């Protein structure tokens, strides 16, 4: 085996790949060859490092230099300066935004200091396409331990004791689910991995599948052993081609090495894994709709009970878990339930991966112990609000969640606390909003999504979400009334109370939580017909300021509605009744004389 003195790790997550990470790899390899160091220094493409705001990332080991925003053109300098002469390329180092000092090692960065990467333990460390790197990190050791020296009951007990709860959104105790599944006797049982990850902006599962696919495969096999299932199926959305490729290769490699297939490691346990692709429906992330889709049927949820553990794929007992839930299993088996419980809160053990996005300085993928506060995530890890703006709200749980505000910032993140505050954990999406976000518009945005993605089966969701969206559109267009707000509440409560599945039941959450926390903003929209955040174009008035207007007539010429009047060298005037709020005048004015509000 090659003894490389230094390793260069290049982030190969979808985000960095789309910023030419592949070319960086090629260029690094070429430069190393040219300097005669191809045998001394390796270049590996890993999974996501998480610091997506600063990608593409290149990390040099063992000195832990963390290069950010690397371009293919920088590759040669990194090699000739850092690798050849030990001279770090300072302009590519991360600079702390407050102190402006360079930080070489990521573990000293605010973004990373409070993180604890468990599910993401191998992402950004190993080559996801090389099973031997996974094995070097104790890969498949947990599976081996389980099938050679633990009983099924023991395995289930470990998962139960760990306190692991489903990471897909519902937070159901994983060990309990496995135990229930194991109780049903059938020749054919299944393990299904929900890799449909539909929440807009969420990429936790994608990163795990791209960066550490074997963790998921190993966990599924462990689950198969514990629940006596011989077949595993991964339902993965077709919009994740890279993850699909990495998984397919991982399955092949695992089979080749004997971790999947017939009579694994000489035991009686056989387990095979295959992939099924989604076809672009958010609702197929709901477990029963997912199973129906996998069976070739219409992706519509069915009533529970019966639960999949009893009556799942093709009517057989099925254990279905989320990608992140599975990713935690091998390390829980290896390091024990007590270790896992030592992290997190009493009712929510362990860590959680979040996709941190929105008006925040450090956008990326993070993993923190449960119990970390929202304030810590947003202001320490996230680096605070971009452009020095004021924090307004943070949305957790994607389109199923609610908005938390200033007063909630010290809430320790866990399943129950978030629900108590009117939101939910969801799969891990966390969108930060600032003073320029209009909360009714945010609710409208989420309803646009859920309304489009409704499967159409049940009345409250099929028609209810459409009516909710229509109401929000009226409100944002200045046609809403106080009755509209009352109607929003009335509709929301019935939809929540009677929809058939989680999609419908949680669709009103963004509406209800913003109505409660930002009532005044809604009232401003319907009574004053104003949008305080300056977002809803139909509610904004354009004004020409007399002190700045030079009378150049540019705005008058460019107005498509003939709403501007004025003579040359005289202050111009906008007739609000004619104005169609297109903003062309403001865009054209060279004197910043036109404002909108």
């Amino acid at each position, binding site marked *: 085996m090659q003894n490389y003195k230094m390793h260069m790790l290049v982030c190969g997550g979808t985000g960095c790949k789309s910023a030419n990470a592949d070319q960086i790899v090629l260029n690094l390899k070429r430069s190393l060859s040219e300097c005669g160091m191809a045998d001394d220094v390796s270049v590996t493409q890993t999974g996501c490092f998480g610091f997506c705001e600063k990608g593409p990332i290149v990390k040099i080991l063992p000195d832990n230099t963390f290069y950010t925003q690397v371009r293919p053109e920088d590759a040669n300098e990194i090699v000739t300066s850092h690798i050849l002469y030990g001279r770090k390329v300072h302009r590519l180092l991360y600079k702390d935004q407050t102190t402006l000092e360079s930080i070489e090692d990521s573990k000293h960065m605010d973004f990373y200091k409070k993180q604890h990467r468990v599910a993401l333990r191998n992402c950004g460390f190993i080559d996801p396409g090389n099973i031997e790197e996974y094995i070097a990190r104790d890969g498949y050791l947990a599976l081996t331990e389980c099938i050679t020296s633990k009983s099924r009951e023991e395995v289930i007990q470990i998962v139960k004791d760990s306190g692991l709860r489903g990471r897909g959104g519902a937070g159901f105790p994983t060990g309990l689910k496995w135990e229930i599944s194991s109780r049903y006797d059938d020749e054919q049982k299944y393990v299904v991995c929900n890799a449909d990850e539909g929440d807009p902006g969420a990429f936790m599962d994608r990163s795990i599948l791209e960066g550490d696919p074997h963790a998921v495969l190993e966990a599924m096999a462990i689950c198969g052993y514990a629940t006596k299932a011989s077949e595993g199926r991964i339902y993965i959305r077709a919009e994740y081609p890279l993850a699909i490729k990495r998984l397919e290769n991982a399955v092949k490699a695992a089979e080749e090495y004997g971790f999947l297939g017939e009579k694994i490691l000489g035991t009686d346990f056989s387990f095979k894994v295959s992939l099924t692709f989604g076809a672009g*429906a958010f*609702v197929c992330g709901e477990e029963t709709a997912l199973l129906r889709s996998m069976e070739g049927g*219409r992706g*519509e949820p069915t*009533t529970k*009970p019966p639960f999949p553990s009893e009556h799942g794929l093709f009517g057989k007992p099925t254990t279905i878990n989320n990608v992140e839930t599975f990713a935690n299993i091998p390390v829980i088996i290896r390091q024990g339930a007590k270790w896992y419980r030592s992290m997190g809160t009493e009712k929510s053990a362990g860590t959680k991966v979040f996709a941190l996005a929105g008006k925040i300085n450090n956008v990326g993928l993070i993993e923190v112990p449960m119990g970390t506060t929202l304030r810590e995530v947003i202001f320490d890890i996230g680096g605070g609000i971009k452009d020095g703006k004021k924090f307004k709200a943070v949305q957790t749980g994607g389109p199923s969640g609610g908005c938390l505000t200033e007063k909630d910032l010290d809430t320790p993140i866990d399943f129950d606390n978030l629900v108590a505050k009117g939101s939910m954990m969801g799969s891990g999406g966390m969108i930060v909003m600032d003073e320029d976000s209009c909360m009714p518009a945010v609710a409208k945005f989420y309803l646009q999504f859920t*309304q*489009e*993605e*409704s*499967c*159409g*089966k*049940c*009345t*409250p969701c*099929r*028609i*209810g*979400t*459409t*009516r909710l969206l*229509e109401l929000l559109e009226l409100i944002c267009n200045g046609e809403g009334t106080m009755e509209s707000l009352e*109607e929003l509440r*009335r*509709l929301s409560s*019935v939809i*929540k*109370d*009677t*929809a*058939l599945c989680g999609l419908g*039941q949680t669709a009103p959450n963004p509406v209800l939580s913003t109505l409660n926390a930002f009532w005044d903003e809604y009232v401003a929209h319907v009574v004053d017909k104003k949008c305080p955040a300056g977002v809803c174009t139909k509610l904004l008035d354009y004004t020409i300021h007399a002190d700045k207007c030079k009378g150049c007539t540019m705005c008058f010429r460019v107005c498509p509605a003939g709403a501007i009047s004025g003579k040359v060298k005289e202050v111009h005037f906008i007739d609000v009744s004619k104005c169609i709020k297109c903003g062309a005048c403001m865009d054209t004015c060279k004197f910043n004389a036109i404002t909108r509000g």
Partner: protein
Amino acid sequence: MSDVTITIDGKTMKVKQGTSILEAAKEAGITIPTLCYFNLENADIACKPASCRVCVVEVEGSRNLLPSCVTSVAEGMVVRTNSKRAINARKMNIELLLSDHPNDCLTCPKSGSCDLQRLTQIVEVRSIDVTGTRRSTVPVEVGKALKRDLSKCIMCRRCETMCSTVQSVYALSAIHRGFPAYVGTAFEEPLSDTVCVSCGQCSAVCPVGAITENDEVEKVIDALADKTKTVVFQTAPSVRVAIGEEFGLPAGTEVTGKMITALRRLGADYVFDTNFAADLTIMEESAEIIERIKAFLNDEKVSLPITTSCCPGWVNFFESQFSDMLDLPSTAKSPQGMFGAVAKNYFTQKLGIRREDMIVVSIMPCTAKKVEADREALKVNGNPDVDIVLTTRETARLFKLANIDFTKLEDSEFDDPLGESTGAASIFGVTGGVLEAALRTVYETLEEKPLKKVEFFDVRGFTGVKTTTLKIAGIPINVAVVHGLANARKVMDEVKAGNPRDLHVIEVMACPGGCIGGGGQPYHRGDGSVLSKRTSAIYEIDKDKKIRKSHENPFIKELYQNYYGEPLSHLAHEQLHTHYTATAKY
């Protein structure tokens, strides 16, 4: 299965485990409103998507309201079906449905018999505050058998269930996603361009006006108004035990006499009986059965099993799904078809009129009969043997339109020579009836001695597939009686795979229970007792008949004597038999 104790609306009761809250409530005298729920228990047909969310109830300990139709009782469960929360939710969901519905009740064909309309009367929706866009309208489609107005679809999935699970035709399915979703055809093709067999079971279960029968009442009024035409009516066996329901009479009340009177009051020139033609069908078909069995016993190459061919839903089905086995079904036309041929050949001759001057109107429990009458093989030079087909539902509407006070009518008799029928003909309306009728004649023909008992109980009943072996003249004849096309598909697949049970004769009825459960019958609304009461009435008619075997019908004997000669004669073949053509499978 032990009992559990539950409390529902304050009333404590013991209920069998596995019972739904809805059923338990019924036992307690509580009727929770439903909409999509459909459960035809005795036919084992159920559609419980729990998607309308009208039947929701409050259950202590549950965060959300639960659908009572699919939630089972549990020990100690406390249910409130009429709390403010439950009633409010019910109202809201109906309000939502109405906000996406045309609400053209006054002109809708389902007015008065629409489940959604009835619901609004119970749940008191007085205003629709959530108005908004409508699902983009799909144009109204009128086919020969069915009319579809999908702007009214409420996604109850009953039609889809009938078409897929019960009939295995799969012409209907939910399409599109979300708000635009409705139950329709692949690529939104017109129903008549699909593999639809026109059985009309979809229209029989649709709670609203999304699928209804193609209304041809106007055509009959026009025909009756045309003084140059001789209008001849024929009435199917199943109509007389069901049409009374449209006038408030209990299910299964036999109203033959009143039905005839009503038709005469409309201005019919002749009111004949399809049952007469059913006897004729038995003559032809039993001769065919005997011919094939004899040939089989002679080791000759022959097509077996022979299947019945009087059900047009079944004919449409095998022409598309088993198009490589078209030699199996009997070539005999259906009673409707035979009647038309006899009326337009034999009877026009008797009257001395041209066939174009006769209008044959058949009153059928069936929507597929409308398509059958339109078959080229049932026309001569473009003039159909049967001109117009009205379903039972349309006929009742016609009577009402004609100011007829049905229940007060006196009884009348059918006209001769095409009005007399036997008990064997009467039982055509139920599953097993055609076979039993045929057996009565086949038995006496082969055994050359009279039947001691004319009833063949083995082929009666609601079981989907019944098989039995009968020894006739020493020959063991294996027969099967099937109703529901999914069952028919199973049996035909078995035949295709080598016929392991060695079946010789198969009767197939597309509709549950046979024609008494036809797609054009008065709505049973999921009450299975309606079907069983109609069935009992049919067997009663048979029992009360003096003559119970088709070959003993004197008018049939006369018809052969004067006209056809004998069963399977050249003329019989020409007029009373037909052929089948393969159609596209998908």
